[in-house]
């Protein structure tokens, strides 16, 4: 039988001695054994960390090419939580090799999206030879993807896409990897139909679970939610341990206005893997909206417990738990929550704001309006100094003011919330309920109408002008709308869109471009992962290229 040689002769391609490695394991004996194993094949620049916290501080202060991390890190965050945080905070990029060490093969199914998945898994126990082979394969793959990753980092998604196409045509070994990355690029670019076709192509080769999830996502982004749901339900019959499928299915259920279904699905996901902070937060939000206070409380509390040191926990999460406890009338629990979180909340003005509002509401409920007033005054002061809170907490604040007879302050705050959420049925309904409970239905109706009408009018006029090709005037209208509703993602994205269009056709205006850049960042904060944002970023990049503007830094 004719045989090809298997030796790669990669010695000149991979320089192990130059590789900066980090070993993360909570067990000192294992750390030194892994270090010895790595040094056996030439990796000598090795640092070690015994916990996720230590790993993060090392990674913040050093650059690593390779991270070898045990999934199980004892108390605190596990390896998967560490990886998610590193990716989320941009502390490692696509060039960094991340290998997860696990004791269970089942773990592979836990992380399905490329963003959340490590480069490879090692199942314990393993030998030095296997580790070296895996590392070498990944390094060679990253070498093949080098240009693609570079374009991606520069937000040049179209160039990255072309890079994938070249790899697909020339390197059969990386066919599936290149297709997988291309699918995510297509979705980010809003080219959902092409993404759908691509995932179907992979599934035709083999119905790999992650490809089926990719297909469901592409369907969901095209609003073909019935089909997406069908696909996901079937994936879960085949692979019930695939938690990412529950998360996606919950989003699909919400898109189909099935919030009870969304809650049920997330509860299943949490039962399999309850450590993920964002899954618990989402479950809390949905259960809260469903009026299932007991479940909401449990999920919010778990999110705080699991994420105590994680970036995914913000003062808003403490505010959420307190709101549920307030709604349950459990003032003792509220006091307990605030007491436990005191240090964390006092560390930021946003945290102080949460504390002030919650205490105000609690005092009001306890029948102490003067005390309540004191706290809410403090909250108002914090806000005028720049602290911000999410809409539900602001509504709570307005509700309390209203109950205390401070009608003007309440109306103005509700007006502000409504302007920034003119198209959110959930929030507007909540505001309506507040007026209803206060017996001020009519005032409420006119306040809400006035608040949303202005913004809606400016927005519609702006969009209409843009459609007629009168971009200058469209920009004026939409910037006025932004001024009215500076936290309204839909409005801001429309404004960014016409600004770019206007510059494109009528010439550069750097001040305007800078403003658009800031608005786009705000939109990304208000509506993280919104499907329009990547497209707008791309458009902005094209404008910058066209007019030779260099971006200060990639965000």
């Amino acid at each position, binding site marked *: *039988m*004719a*045989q*090809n040689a*298997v030796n*790669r002769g990669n010695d000149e391609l991979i320089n192990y001695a130059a590789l900066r490695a980090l070993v993360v394991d909570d*067990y000192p*004996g*294992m750390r030194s*054994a*892994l270090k*010895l*194993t790595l040094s*056996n094949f030439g990796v000598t620049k090795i640092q070690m960390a015994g916990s996720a916290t230590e790993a993060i501080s090392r990674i913040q202060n050093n650059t690593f090419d390779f991270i070898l991390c045990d999934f*199980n890190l004892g108390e605190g965050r596990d390896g998967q939580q560490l990886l998610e945080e590193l990716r989320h905070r941009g502390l490692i990029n696509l060039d960094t090799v991340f290998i997860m060490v696990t*004791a269970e*093969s*089942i773990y*592979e*199914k836990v992380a399905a999206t490329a963003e959340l998945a490590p480069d490879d898994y090692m*199942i*314990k*126990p*393993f*030998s*030095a*030879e*296997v580790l*070296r*082979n*895996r590392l070498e*394969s990944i390094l060679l793959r990253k070498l093949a993807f080098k240009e693609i990753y570079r374009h991606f980092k520069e937000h040049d998604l179209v160039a990255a896409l072309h890079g994938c196409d070249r790899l697909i045509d020339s390197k*059969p*070994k990386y*066919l*599936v*990897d290149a297709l997988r990355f291309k699918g995510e690029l297509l979705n980010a670019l809003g080219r959902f139909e092409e993404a759908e076709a691509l995932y179907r192509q992979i599934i035709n*080769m*083999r119905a*790999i*679970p*992650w490809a089926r999830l990719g297909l469901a996502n592409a369907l969901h982004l095209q609003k073909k939610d019935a089909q997406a749901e069908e696909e996901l339900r079937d994936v879960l019959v085949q*692979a019930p341990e695939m938690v990412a499928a529950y998360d996606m299915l919950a989003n699909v259920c919400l898109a189909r206005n099935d919030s009870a279904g969304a809650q049920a699905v997330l509860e299943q996901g949490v039962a399999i893997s309850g450590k993920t902070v964002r899954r618990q937060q989402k479950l809390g939000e949905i259960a809260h909206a469903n009026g299932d206070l007991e479940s909401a409380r449990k999920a919010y509390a778990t999110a705080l417990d699991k994420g105590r040191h994680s970036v995914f926990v913000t003062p808003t999460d403490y505010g959420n738990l307190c709101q549920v406890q307030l709604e349950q009338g459990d003032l003792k629990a509220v006091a307990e929550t605030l007491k436990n979180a005191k240090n964390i909340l006092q560390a930021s003005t946003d945290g102080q704001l949460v504390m002030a509002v919650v205490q105000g509401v609690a005092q009001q409920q306890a029948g102490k309006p003067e005390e309540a007033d004191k706290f809410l005054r403090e909250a108002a002061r914090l806000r005028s100094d720049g602290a911000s809170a999410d809409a539900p907490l602001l509504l709570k604040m307005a509700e309390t003011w209203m109950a205390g007879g401070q009608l003007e302050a309440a109306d103005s705050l509700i007006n502000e919330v409504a302007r920034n959420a003119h198209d959110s049925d959930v929030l507007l309904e909540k505001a309506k309920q507040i007026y209803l409970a206060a017996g001020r239905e009519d005032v409420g109706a006119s306040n809400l109408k006035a608040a949303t009408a202005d913004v809606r009018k400016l927005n519609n006029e702006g969009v209409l002008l843009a459609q007629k090709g009168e971009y200058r005037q469209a920009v004026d209208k939409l910037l006025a709308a932004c001024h009215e509703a500076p936290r309204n993602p839909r409005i801001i994205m429309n404004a960014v869109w016409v600004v770019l269009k206007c510059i494109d056709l009528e010439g550069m205006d750097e001040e305007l471009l800078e403003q658009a850049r800031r608005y786009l960042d705000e939109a990304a904060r208000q509506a993280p992962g919104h499907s329009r944002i990547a497209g707008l970023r791309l458009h902005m990049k094209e404008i910058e290229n066209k007019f030779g503007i260099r971006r200060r830094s990639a965000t």
Partner: protein
Amino acid sequence: MKFDSNDLYASLMHELKNHLGLLAMTIDSIPLQNDPAHDGVVDDARLLCQRVVERLQQALLIYKAANGQIKPSIDAYSPEDLVRELRDTAVSLARGRLEVHCGIAPETPAIAFFDRTLIEMALINAIHNALAYARTAIWIEAGIEAGRLTLTVRDDSEGFPEPILSGYTSDAPNRSGGTGLGLHFARMIAETHVNQGRGGELRLANQNGAVFCVLLP
């Protein structure tokens, strides 16, 4: 204190794997002294340690099979990478006592779909056997046969005993210390790999030695 036996079992397994991994790495780190009296003992310890790892994996697989959950988790892998990894493992276990050859047939696909953990487990077991019975050399190969990926471990031993070739499997632990579990699991692993109605297969033959071949659809 109350024990949850499932939790306890899981953390015991975790500990066991950690310690076995440590033991293997510790043995690997013992330097050779070019003294057969010393090096031979170290080699034996390494092989024994690998055997224990293998038995542990088998025990876990039995546990899973009893709970009805041996479902392969399929992804795309390079057969060439797999063969190279197995070759390096075999070379390290053979420590120069036997030759280790490997090869990729030209028409072998660049990527194939299988459960890497399960397939490696089956092939490593075959490699251990081959290293134990071979006279001078073993071969690890990938190829393709009628649309199925073939992964083969061959040696120049006496070959498999007749009862094994004719599919004889006794339920009871048998003969010379062995359990016969290795081949049993390899067959099970191959057969759980199903694609569009076609199943995987384990093929055993004697041809100038023992030939162990897994075919994957």
